[in-house]
């Protein structure tokens, strides 16, 4: 059955806490909680791709047992509401629009977000033989100042529902929230555990990879399991044996590499080609200009450039990002950066 799943990262998803790769201490603590049948609100902090949501979901599943479905909800603090939800939000509590433009008003989703996504769930008592419901809020930091509103919610409805707040940025979480939560730091698995997981997959899928290449895989993916499995699967397509050349080859066309390419094209001074690529990146991956700038910054740091060049490029990216805050047309703002990079390349 599971053999039929064509996507390895889905095929090898853990189905219970003890199938989670590594992090044994953490898993032990969570298992203890499940036995105790009680826990305070939790805050999961860890880098992107470290498995926070997977772990939180499995934990909730095991905690709630057969009552899981009716007592569990997962929401994304950074997702705009869809029109149905907005409609609902409007009938419950109107979204204040002091700006012009229908989008301008809708973008301020947070009060509506709480109204629509949080309140209806936490207001009602848990169903069945469980002490309370569980609500997972992903990307909690995206709530910004509206985190304040949560602090009351956590108190008022804490009896009905415990929350698991998930974030990559501990620094963006306000103190009153931190003080109301038990904190779990979730780091990527250690190499040994990572290796175990990869080896298991490699055996089942009948491919081969040497230990030093597993190390390489660990390094280039920063231990992010899903990303590593993707890369492994792509690499497996070109043959049974997976070596570093194959790994690099497949790494070379992932989307961060599109951004790296974008930088390289700029540094070659080809504005037209750069603009075309940047548009492709924007429309295919739905990146905002802000995200494109951040990715460019990240990729830039990986390029072999002089200190002077780095400093200059950081300056250009920061300036472009700054302008884009007030600007309306992301394409113009990104093109601005590209043009300046092309020009800078000429000087180099």
């Amino acid at each position, binding site marked *: 059955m599971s053999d039929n799943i*064509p*996507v390895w*990262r889905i095929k090898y998803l853990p189905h219970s806490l003890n199938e989670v790769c590594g992090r044994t201490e953490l898993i032990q603590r969570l298992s203890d909680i499940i036995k105790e049948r009680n826990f305070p609100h939790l805050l999961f902090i860890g880098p992107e791709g470290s498995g926070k*949501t997977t772990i939180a*979901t499995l934990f909730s599943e095991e905690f709630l047992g057969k009552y899981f479905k009716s007592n569990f909800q*997962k929401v*994304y603090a*950074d*997702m705009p509401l869809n*029109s149905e939800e*907005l*409609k609902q939000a*409007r009938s419950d509590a*109107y*979204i*204040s*629009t*002091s*700006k*012009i*433009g*229908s*989008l*301008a*008003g809708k973008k301020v989703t947070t009060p509506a977000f709480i109204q629509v996504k949080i309140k209806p769930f936490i207001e009602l008592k848990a169903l069945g033989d469980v002490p309370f419901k569980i609500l997972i809020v*992903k990307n909690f930091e995206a709530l910004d100042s509206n985190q304040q509103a949560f602090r009351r919610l956590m108190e008022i409805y804490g009896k009905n529902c415990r929350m698991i707040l998930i974030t990559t940025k501990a620094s963006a979480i306000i103190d009153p929230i931190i003080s109301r939560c038990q904190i779990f730091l979730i780091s990527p698995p250690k190499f040994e555990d990572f290796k175990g997981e990869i080896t298991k997959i490699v055996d089942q899928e009948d491919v081969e990879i040497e230990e030093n290449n597993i190390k390489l895989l660990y390094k280039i993916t920063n231990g992010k399991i*899903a990303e590593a499995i993707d890369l492994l*699967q*792509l690499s497996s*397509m070109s043959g049974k044996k997976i070596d570093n050349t194959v790994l690099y080859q497949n790494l070379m*066309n*992932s*989307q961060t590499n599109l951004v790296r390419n974008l930088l390289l094209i700029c540094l070659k001074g080809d*504005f*037209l080609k750069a603009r075309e690529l940047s*548009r492709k990146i*924007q*429309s*295919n*991956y*739905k*990146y*905002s*200009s802000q995200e494109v700038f951040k990715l460019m910054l990240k990729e830039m740091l990986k390029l072999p450039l002089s200190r002077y060049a780095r400093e200059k490029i950081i300056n250009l990216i920061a300036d*472009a990002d700054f*302008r884009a805050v*007030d*600007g*309306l*047309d*992301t*394409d*113009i*703002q990104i*093109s*601005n950066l590209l*043009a300046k990079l*092309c*020009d800078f390349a*000429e000087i180099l």
Partner: protein
Amino acid sequence: MKDTLERPWVEKYRPQSIKEMAIPQAKVSGHRVALDEELRTFIKTFLTEIQNINEKNKKIRIYNRTVEDKKQKKELSVPPEKSAVLLEGPPGVGKTSIVYALANDLNMEVIETNASDTRTRDALESKLKETVKSRGIMDFIVQSKAKLILIDEIDGIYGVTDRGAVPAVLDLIENTQFPIIMCSNDYKRNLQTLYNKIRKIEISALSKDEILKVVKRILKKEKIDNFNPKDLNYIIEKNEGDLRGTINDLQGIYQGGLDTDTSELIYQLNRDNNEEIFSLIRELFQDARTLQQARNITDKSDVDYNFLYKWINENLPTFIKKTNELKTAYENLSLADEVFGRIRKNQYWSLLPYFYDLFSGGVVLARKYHPENEGFRRINFPRFTSTGFFSLTVAEHSFVEKIQEKYNVSEIEIIQNLLPFLRKLTSDSRKYLKLVSDWFDLDAKEKKLLTK
């Protein structure tokens, strides 16, 4: 440039008279009322009351002057429920508009304060009290032209910094010489003390028919007759009774820049206009050598600037090839966009001249090198890219839903993370393409996303 297009349509077509408005449905403590009549009566009643009270106060003041301090009588004022009303309703149904329209009809002047601008008690007080509360000289002015106070977006008044604002408003209501109308989107518990004292009119969202009427009038005035009724319907529906949003979207779609899905629509709408834009762009880049020339060229044209600066962005690299010239051009164009953003966000219309000069002169004058023979250069239609708002096309949306049935992660994760992987996985392998689309049960359209 058409100067009629210089402002957003919502401003341009802000109703000047009640006659131009769709009157939204309204209720007072559960009972239907005619909004315009209700407001008229309110103003009239207030004006009679205040006149009476001012007469009486004059006498009291004379009396007070003649007795010693202790026995002084208190001056009278109009009771709060007669001096202020609150219009509460969703955004974009015409709350602000009806106040101005009515004032116009009654030949009154509106003194507006926006609660979100004036957050502190001090600010509110100084802005309002001095104009309003001071008697004597003001009594005289009242007779010259009647005034009306509008406190818009009163729900924005309560924040961390403005605990003093509610008493300030209450104080104002108790001492006002002019009728006060307040508007609000939200019911705010914090404002309960305020609500208890005044009359509240609840306004509901506009119906589709009402909206259609207003919209059709605008389209007619803009001489747009080829708007596809289906698209119109879609836009109206999407805005759920918000006329401001509807009008903004219409303008956005007509003038370009909202999102990729509508670009086809925009293209059709502007087909006749294209030739004119083509020659305008050529003229700008090829002939303009001074700022004045650039201004002249844009001024005489009929093309709307909302639109024009996107054309300039698109075609800039066709005319400007040298990287240092490109850099200067984009420096100015991106600044123009930033300035325009601020204008739109904060209504700084006084910045508009910079915007014009930056996107036209500032861009084309960056071109120092003009070849002997320009040759023919193709003008491209602007590609409308994302506005920075995460929005999915219909196909992407259904794709995400199919995936989520089997793999429950967020939309963003699917689009930014899984989809690129699936693309690579399936791009070189027909076998995988089939396996993946079968397993996720993708239809042809969704499958196309994989091969994009």
